[in-house]
């Protein structure tokens, strides 16, 4: 990960614009994950027999969905880290252009 240290004020805190942008990215990704987690919990609660189905490779939906939730949490975390880095770089380039 690339440091976004150039985009900080004198005491090491992110500039307010960057903080707001990161919060916006975080909010969107949070809602995406919450929706998938909600579907998983909803199926287990109200239609647990759906989890017995075997979509492929002889492994049931319960295992695929559970592993998928863990892997997707990591995937979204990487995406978030990348987006936050990109936003800092873009802001730097805007400042340079000005």
């Amino acid at each position, binding site marked *: *990960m690339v*440091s*976004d*240290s150039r985009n*900080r004020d004198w005491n*090491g*805190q*992110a500039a307010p614009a960057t*903080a707001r942008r*990161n*919060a916006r990215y*975080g*909010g969107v*990704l*949070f809602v995406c*994950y*919450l929706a998938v*987690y909600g579907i*998983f*919990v909803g199926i*287990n*609660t*109200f239609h*647990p*027999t759906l*989890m*017995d189905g*075997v979509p492929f*490779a*002889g*492994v*049931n939906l*319960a*295992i695929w969905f*559970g*592993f998928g*939730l*863990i*892997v997707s*949490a*990591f995937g*979204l*975390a*990487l995406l*978030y*880290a990348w987006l*936050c880095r990109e936003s800092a770089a873009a802001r730097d380039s805007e400042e340079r252009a000005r």
Partner: protein
Amino acid sequence: MIHQTSSLAVSVFLAFVAVTLGLSFFLASRARSAHGYFAAGGQIHWFINGVAFAGDYLSAASFLGICGMIAFYGYDGFLYSIGYLAGWVVALFVIAEPLRRLGRYTFADALDAKFHSRGIKLAAAASTLVVSIFYLIPQMVGAGVLIQPLLQLPHWVGVVIVGAVVILIVMTAGMASTTYVQFLKGGLLVLFSTILTVLILQRGFVAVTDPSAMRSQTIERTADGQTRIDGVPKGTGEGEGRLRSVGHIRRLPNGVERTGPVGPIEFFRVLRESEVVLWKAETRKGADGAAVTTYVANPVEGAAVLRPGQAPMFQGLRGDAIAPKIDFLSLMLALFCGTASLPHILIRYYTVKDEAAARKSTVVGIASIGFFYMLTLYMGLGAMTSGAIDVTDSNMAAPLLARTYGELLFAVISAIAFTTVLGTVSGLIVAASGAVVHDLLTSFLRWDLTDHEKVRLGKWTAAGVGAVAMALGILFQKMNVSFLVGWAFSIAASANLPALVMRLFWKGTTRQGITAAILVGMCGSLVWILLSGESFAKIYGLPAEQAWVPFSQPGIVTIPLGFAVLVIVSLATRPR
């Protein structure tokens, strides 16, 4: 299970203790200022902090409890893994960066950054102490359980050893030593769990075709503490009885007797197409007052242990009653919301230098913790099908599974399990110590303390909290206290999350609103828990049906209640 002391296990255990203590004394110079003691000076590298997150978070409940639950009931234990990991999404996307920006020592700093309110500090400190105590008890009880087979020492000695080592770790270098112990533990836990999983896959599955493996077994626990198995004393010698293993495979696909090595996906396919034997237990009182439990073989399709709704606590998912379903929803909500509200996790955000480091360390934490939780399913199912543990060993699944691969792996996994307890307990004690010194004494009571006095008081508070933890660990020895971790999540989520989220994202939040939300969330969830069926059955020894509340997990009621109270009180007290 009959356990025998292994000199190799004892040596590895002592080496681990020596390394952790040596590390603490080496880092002692970093804890001279209050910021150094409570937050490691904010100088921990983000990668080390990320792995330390794993060391802090993966407590005995995760390593021993989840593996044991999967070994006994299958997939249902994995639901905890999924919920615990999902909580980190809230921590990364919602809490991490603003919390780091606004705070310095405790999460109360972030809540109170704008208001400078004594009420907020008091409420946040009380919530920190309550959550920490609920979390500490199962860790200390688990420490005693772990020491018994490893060193053949009584339970209380195990609790005292853990307490003494943790107090030394925290008193010498505070958050700096705690962080490096957690880093060490987190790294080793993930590494050796991976090794164990590779060995499970390499061994594959073996069918047990001996008809005697299906015979029922009776365990009799007499009033004088003796255990008899099928009428003979429990033991490993001639004329003594051994307990059956928790499960075994009776039939493999295509009638083969062993599969040989299997791949990570093939592992589940083979198990799903096999027949697994578990045990149904029935307990009654004997003529002389002895508790007699009869275990009857219960052959099931492998598919049954790979789907939700098999464990007693989740069986209601496959029924029509609504209360068990709400209980499950409430549990999954508490796990989702609880992680980002645990005080000992939140203070770790102050050990790194800025928000970017907080973000990166959370990503590393999610990678380590998520990977470990995926391994729990292999380790748990491996313990279920390998004859490693018996029907009484639910908390020792991982170490005893390791024993089937040799004494060295058993010794290392046991020592790692011990450092698992050390890492989590030291984090909890630092959090409690910070809450007492920083929030209660300095901010609420307004004691005028120098930096040196804060460190000194912090160390003595750590010793005091450690002593209380030891006493509670001994007091609760006979109780199955693993459910307390779930309660700690519910209380943390109900008391802290509404206040944190609204403080960070709603400008209308007032100090009265935050204080009220913490107190109502904390007290509401505590009262609900104490009136629940689980408390009636496990604490008061009364029938669960007599409970005053319809389901045991409070989160689905008390988390929204915390948000509602904060909004209502903030609107009522907003400046005009």
